[in-house]
């Protein structure tokens, strides 16, 4: 079946199998491999993208049901080659080790900050509760998101 999506502000029309998952369509159909397929059961958050502005685990979305929706992936974050403050925070605070959780963490963090521009540590942790990291122990990720909140606050 055909599905038409807006992906990172570009219209994309693809033929997909009825059982195609959005994570696979994005990675293999559209060629955007930034989103990762960590578990395929919605447990790890590595596949997190924004769908109509809301963070979702794209491994639990049938591509057929994403018809007409606006998707933002990690590739869509940096505007004109300049890192998004969350991305900059991850770089500055050493919050990336193997990098596999990173795109999902970053996408979820942007949603956390959109919802709550000045989050407490508890709010950051709750917001990232659906994202697993096996490497960092989370501390630097939380520091990065906290720093990004400050950066974004200064930009206002």
């Amino acid at each position, binding site marked *: 079946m055909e599905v038409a999506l807006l992906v990172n502000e570009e219209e994309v029309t693809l033929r997909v199998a009825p059982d195609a998952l959005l994570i696979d369509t994005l990675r293999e159909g559209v060629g955007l491999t930034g989103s990762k397929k960590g578990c395929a059961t*919605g447990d790890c958050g590595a596949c997190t993208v924004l769908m109509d502005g809301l*963070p979702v*685990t794209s491994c*639990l*979305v049938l591509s057929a049901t994403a018809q007409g929706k606006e998707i933002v992936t990690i590739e869509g974050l940096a505007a004109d080659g300049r890192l998004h403050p969350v991305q900059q925070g991850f770089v500055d605070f050493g919050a990336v080790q193997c990098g596999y959780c990173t795109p999902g963490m970053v996408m979820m963090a942007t949603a*956390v900050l959109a919802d709550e521009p000045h989050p407490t540590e508890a709010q950051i942790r709750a917001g990232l509760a659906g994202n697993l990291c096996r490497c960092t122990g989370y501390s630097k990720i939380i520091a990065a998101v906290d720093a990004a909140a400050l950066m974004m606050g200064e930009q206002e």
Partner: protein
Amino acid sequence: MASILEVIRPTELDTLLPILGDPERNTRVLAGGTDLLLKYPHEAGADLTIVDITGIASLAEIVAEEDGLRIGAAVRLADIIASETVAERLPVLAEGCVVVAGPQIRNLATLGGNVCNASPSADTVTPLLVLGAEARIRSARGLRSAPLTEFFVGPGRTIVEPDEFLEALWIPWPVAGAAASYTKVSPRRAMDLAVVGVAVALWREQAGLQARIALGAVAPTPLRAVAAEELIAGAAGMTADLAMQAGILAAAAVSPIDDVRGSARYRKNMVERLTTRSLTEVHGRISDGVV
């Protein structure tokens, strides 16, 4: 092992109902997909016709009616959590929704889906039971209503027939001054199932205290602790002794199993203690409702 033959996305109820009733198709209703997409590959049987109901506007509405709140089956858990009406008048439902999984899942998952998945530990169901919720079930044959206490038949099984779907949950407004709580025992703060779930609602009537107590993850279905409720009915107040006796009766009503998440003995113990603790805590928050 079933695979997906087709995905149909009706925008009207009138289109949906004949599809569900079509004997030539093996239909599954899709809302958030957070359970269905994990389960369907393990089903035996004919290839599936997936019917996505999220495009039917009336199913995604939260409507305050005179006597209660109607929540469409396709309302996302995140939207229930964000609803001011729920926060003001039925906060225990939001307490259940907010401990389901994690934020990404709650942006997809729906109330109807969580109810129809019929896990004995479902965090939305234990609160719905103490709220006295009703299931509104529709097919081409018409609409029927059932108290949620009669909705679950066994783990993962409900009274919804193959040509029917759960259209909405309806919750009567609580009596003025009522209060409730939901407590989830779970090793992790997110992305985990309830090992034990305890919901309690208390209010005052002319005759005295009234209670509803619902328990999750401790029986083949979520259930109400009827004997404990009857003990409380008509009491002048929640004494420590009454709370303790009610806890004992609640624990006697459950039949938990040993599994990877906890032993039966631990679960019974927690039912008793959390029922007692919740009754005491909630009783401190009820009022006569007189303005």
